[in-house]
């Protein structure tokens, strides 16, 4: 790839999805785009980018942008956050609501995160009697969402992060393919969402997870995304980021919860309930 090819890809990723393309790591770009180039019938990534430049076809542009985004994930990735949800946040919120708790995995990739929260909710004790949940998984990538919706995972995928007791409790297998139980799968609704777009029509959520995203975004756009999500959060809701994500410039709208698991709150007065 020439520097011009790389610059064009970086500009596209930034403009369409706020994704930070590491221009000094062409091998990363190549590893992410090679499968797409092959699928689309191009001889090389260069040929793909040339076509992009010549025709500006929206479908292909989005396919490229989706491929530039990082999608690696695990079940229960960042275990502490799920323990905090299971033992503190979900029970506490369930006692304050009559309506179902609405939980949104905003960059769900291939679905492991939203299924992990659904399993964490199923494992939670101390919930209000009759507590109900609605789970939402969204991602920029249609391909990821398609896989997520099937609930099918390889034997490698179910062995990263998923305790064996959870595997036998919530999955069935046929040879090396593992399927999450319909009971969990049917609790989740899916939708393609670009987090840079207007999110105001989505309603309000009690818990929003945004993980493996901010660190891969153009710094100037991180604030916009976090503000957009914070506006969708119930007054006593919880935003779950990665422990390393620094949003201190947004401390007028969100404060970190004690415990260091990446949980953030709109209302610091409920911090003790969440940390419980």
């Amino acid at each position, binding site marked *: 790839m020439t520097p011009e090819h790389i610059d064009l890809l970086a500009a596209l990723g930034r403009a369409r999805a706020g994704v930070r393309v590491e221009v000094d790591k062409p091998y990363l770009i190549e590893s992410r785009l090679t499968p797409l180039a092959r699928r689309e019938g191009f001889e090389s990534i260069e040929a793909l980018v040339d076509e992009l430049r010549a025709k500006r076809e929206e479908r292909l542009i989005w396919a490229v942008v989706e491929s530039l985004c990082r999608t690696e994930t*695990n079940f229960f990735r960042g275990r502490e956050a799920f323990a905090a949800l299971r033992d503190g946040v979900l029970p506490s919120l369930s006692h304050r609501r009559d309506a179902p708790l609405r939980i949104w995995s905003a960059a769900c990739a291939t679905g492991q995160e939203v299924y992990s929260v659904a399993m964490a909710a199923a494992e939670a004790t101390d919930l209000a009697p009759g507590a109900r949940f609605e789970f939402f998984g969204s991602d920029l990538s249609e391909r990821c969402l398609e896989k997520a919706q099937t609930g099918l995972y390889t*034997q*490698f995928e179910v*062995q*990263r*992060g998923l*305790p*064996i*007791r959870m*595997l*036998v409790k919530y*999955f*069935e*297998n046929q*040879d*090396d393919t593992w399927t999450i139980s319909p009971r969990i799968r049917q609790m989740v609704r899916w939708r393609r969402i670009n987090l840079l777009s207007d999110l105001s029509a989505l309603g309000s959520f009690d818990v929003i997870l945004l993980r493996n995203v901010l660190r891969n975004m153009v710094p100037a756009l991180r604030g916009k995304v976090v503000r957009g999500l914070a506006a969708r959060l119930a007054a006593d809701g919880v935003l779950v980021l990665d422990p390393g994500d620094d949003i201190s410039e947004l401390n007028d709208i969100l404060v970190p919860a004690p415990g260091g698991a990446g949980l953030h709150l709109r209302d610091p007065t409920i911090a003790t309930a969440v940390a419980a």
Partner: protein
Amino acid sequence: MKTCLVVDDSRVIRKVARRVLEDIGFDIAEASDGMEALAWCRAAMPDAVLLDWNMPVMNGLEFLKLLRRERGGDTPKVIFCTVENSVDRIREALDAGADEYIMKPFDGDIIQAKFAEAGLL
């Protein structure tokens, strides 16, 4: 340093597992069947056992049941590592006292994830 007994009748698997586990800070002992493993445990109880299921002389499940009846045999974390991947088999292993379970083929990431899950890291 924590010790891990790697029990597998395949020398290749033992070698691969040894390399991964040494990298994450374990001292390794090896046994090629359940009987040999039991002798090891009676001499020096390890912190962890990585355990194949199908082996000559004494299989992994028989070993595990006997181990859990030994004095001090409830302390090692036992992680199965086997081609057996039916839910029934996994449940059988858990009922017999296994702490975690790896389905072959595995890689270094999986071993590390499962040892963390068992509270060994």
